[in-house]
């Protein structure tokens, strides 16, 4: 019996800016695509387009999301095919400053059309809790909440969790809620051990959502965005491995959180740490 293929919509969100939403969107999209799934990643940051730059396709943008919503281009014209991964496509944001360029109806039209073509639809949310962020999460089945181990980021993530539980299609239609996952980024085990940084467990305790992955603070992240390559494709780096593990867990694999194991310390190191 043929099963009806159901596309999965994932929002990458955080509330706070600069915590790594776009980096994570690019990495997770590339990671899922590299596992053989047809994947599209949408930039919802209208007016501040950046996913194209992080993905290295900024010079191939002709039409964007808003052009498609407004009927000035069709979806096929606006989608950019990734040059490295067969299954990966990017839908760039518009650079318009018109805040009302997005509407629920417009977004719905595009998501529905993309569901016919793709297995995973990844929505890269803008920062804040304004319209763009609400539009990015509205049709989500899953939310990956990107958080830094730092007070303002954790607080904003908690706010976002509240909004996910009330302002999404699933919430408004009393369906099973959006499934939320924590992705902790810019993590430094060393600083956690010194007591200068919130630990994974601290953040998990406060936000009370399952942990998808912990991305270590890594030089590879800046190197990757400098060159317009999703971190996951830089196979050597620890950040890449951490993102690929997060992707694996998302796809249902049982992968241990390897980077959390404290380094063994000698007696004197313990005494003076």
């Amino acid at each position, binding site marked *: 019996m043929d099963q009806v293929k159901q596309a999965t919509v994932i929002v990458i969100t955080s509330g706070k800016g600069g915590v790594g939403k776009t980096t994570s969107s690019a990495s997770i999209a590339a990671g899922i695509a590299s596992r053989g799934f047809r994947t599209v990643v949408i930039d919802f940051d209208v007016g501040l387009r950046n996913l194209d730059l992080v993905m290295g396709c900024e010079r191939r943008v002709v039409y964007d999301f808003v052009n498609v919503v407004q009927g000035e281009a069709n979806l096929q014209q606006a989608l950019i095919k990734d040059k490295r991964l067969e299954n990966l496509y990017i839908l760039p944001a518009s650079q318009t400053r018109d805040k009302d360029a997005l509407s629920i109806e417009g977004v719905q039209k595009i998501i529905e059309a993309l569901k016919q073509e793709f297995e995973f639809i990844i929505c890269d949310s803008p920062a804040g809790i304004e319209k763009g962020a609400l539009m990015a999460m509205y049709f989500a089945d899953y939310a990956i909440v990107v958080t830094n181990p*730092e*007070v303002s980021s*954790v*607080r904003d993530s*908690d*706010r976002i*969790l*509240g909004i996910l*539980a*009330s302002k999404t299609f699933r919430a408004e239609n009393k369906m099973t809620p959006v499934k939320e996952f924590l992705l902790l980024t810019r993590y430094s085990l060393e600083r*956690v051990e010194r*007591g*200068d*940084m*919130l*630990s994974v467990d*601290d953040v998990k*305790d*406060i936000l009370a959502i399952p942990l998808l992955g912990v991305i270590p603070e890594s030089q590879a992240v800046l190197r990757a965005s400098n060159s317009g390559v999703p971190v996951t494709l830089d196979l050597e780096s620890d950040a890449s491995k951490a993102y690929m593990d997060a992707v694996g867990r998302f796809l249902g694999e049982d992968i241990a959180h390897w980077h959390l194991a404290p380094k063994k310390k000698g007696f004197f190191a*313990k*005494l*003076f*740490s």
Partner: protein
Amino acid sequence: MNVKKMMDYFRGTPRNTASLAKERLQIIVSHERVATREGGVDFLPQLEQELLDVISKYMTIDREQVKVHLARDGDLSILELNVTLPDKAKTPAV
């Protein structure tokens, strides 16, 4: 306690900023959850104001002496109203 912690202790510096961060977050987050989450209870400030108005119709009270707190425990919501009356509750002069 290791040597560094001991030195910090005598210097009077906070020994662990991460645990301080966690404590502060737990307080603010639980406060904000009640205000904005869990059924969207954002009427609390207004409720507080109206209760204050009603009470001050009958007696003179200090605004600071009225505390409204909404807590959730599973399916149970508890609305707690705490009014500290002055030593001698006076009816307002009309």
